[in-house]
């Protein structure tokens, strides 16, 4: 009975981590486009849009989009998974990040974007690092107070188990 309950829970955990991945993927299809538009508007406003021709701009763009787009996408997926999943969070966060990223790469493939020049530095690398780091940070943001409490309470539990006199 206990075992079947555990199995049932783990299936719902898998489902929730998949949903977390879909949240991550969905935001990855929307947020980078919006941020790209805003980013270009800022460069036009600053009167330095010509800087886009430089190789160093490509690196700067990748770093900025890692932070303001893909990290946020991963974080949102991680928040959902962290909130829903109770056990083996590391594994399920990994599933969430993998699903989000793989679906995103499949979308790029079907849109024909994978053959574009500089696609790895412009999109793939920021998306990979951003989604994985973001998912773990999102998941751990949810469980952080719990971990903190567990760490604090651990010495007390050991004392109770080891010391017979306390029970008397």
């Amino acid at each position, binding site marked *: 009975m206990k075992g079947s309950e555990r199995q049932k829970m783990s299936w719902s955990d898998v489902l929730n981590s998949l949903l977390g991945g879909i949240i991550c993927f969905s935001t990855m299809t929307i947020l980078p486009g919006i941020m790209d538009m805003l980013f270009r508007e800022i460069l036009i406003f600053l009167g330095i849009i010509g800087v*886009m021709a430089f190789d160093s*701009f490509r690196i*700067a763009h990748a770093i900025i989009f890692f932070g*303001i787009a893909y990290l946020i996408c991963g974080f949102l997926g991680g928040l959902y998974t962290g909130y829903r999943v109770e056990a083996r969070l590391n594994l399920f966060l990994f599933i969430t990040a993998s699903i989000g990223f793989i679906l995103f790469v499949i979308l790029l493939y079907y849109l024909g974007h994978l053959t574009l020049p500089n696609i790895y530095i412009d999109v793939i690398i920021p998306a990979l690092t951003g989604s994985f780091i973001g998912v773990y940070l999102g998941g751990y943001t949810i*469980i952080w107070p719990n971990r903190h409490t567990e760490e604090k309470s651990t010495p007390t539990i050991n004392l109770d188990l080891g010391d017979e006199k306390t029970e008397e």
Partner: protein
Amino acid sequence: MSHHESCDQPLKLGLPRLPLLIFLLLICGSLILGFSIIHFTVAANKRGDYLSLNNDVLSVNLPINWFALTWESSNRSFGGKVFSLIIFHPNKFSAISIQVYDKVATERFFIERNLSDLAAISYWDVQRFFNWTLEKNENASVISIVNGTAHAGASENIARYSRILIRNGFKSSDGKYYNMSCIVLSFMNKDNLVRIAFWGKQEDYEDTYEVFQRILSDLVVKGYEGK
């Protein structure tokens, strides 16, 4: 106590959860680092209202407030690489493109398009441009085509050019038609074919012609072997 119960605890305002703090720091860090790189790139290459782009293929001055994109494309089947640069005004319909072909790509360009010389390339390009405008407006018509020779680049390569003026070639968002202009220059720099095109709505073309002249006069094409 499950961690869901712990989630009900309000966040302490003074001390955010550590992962959230790392997340916010990463966002701020990426913005600071990214914009610092952009700032230093601009500061290092700014020459008045222009940015000096200097790479392995060419050296050119670009207007600082125009969109500018560069990329390198290669033909996987036959080899050969092409370096492309396109710049366009953010608010006007006016654009300039520069393409530099390596030796293999240059040979293939002539063979595949069955073109014999530079004058034929320029003429072929403006015809292609006219066909493109016909797709937008089938009533567009050629007002004039002028062919000639000009000096291009800082090294004053002799270029062959074709200039076309098209009636009603551009349809604006309010449904009005405007004339379009396009000039294409082609020249050889050692073994490399260089194609330069400048096109736009007639008024915008004339307004930005000075920028085109500046780019053309400052352009230095280096030997392009392809990487």
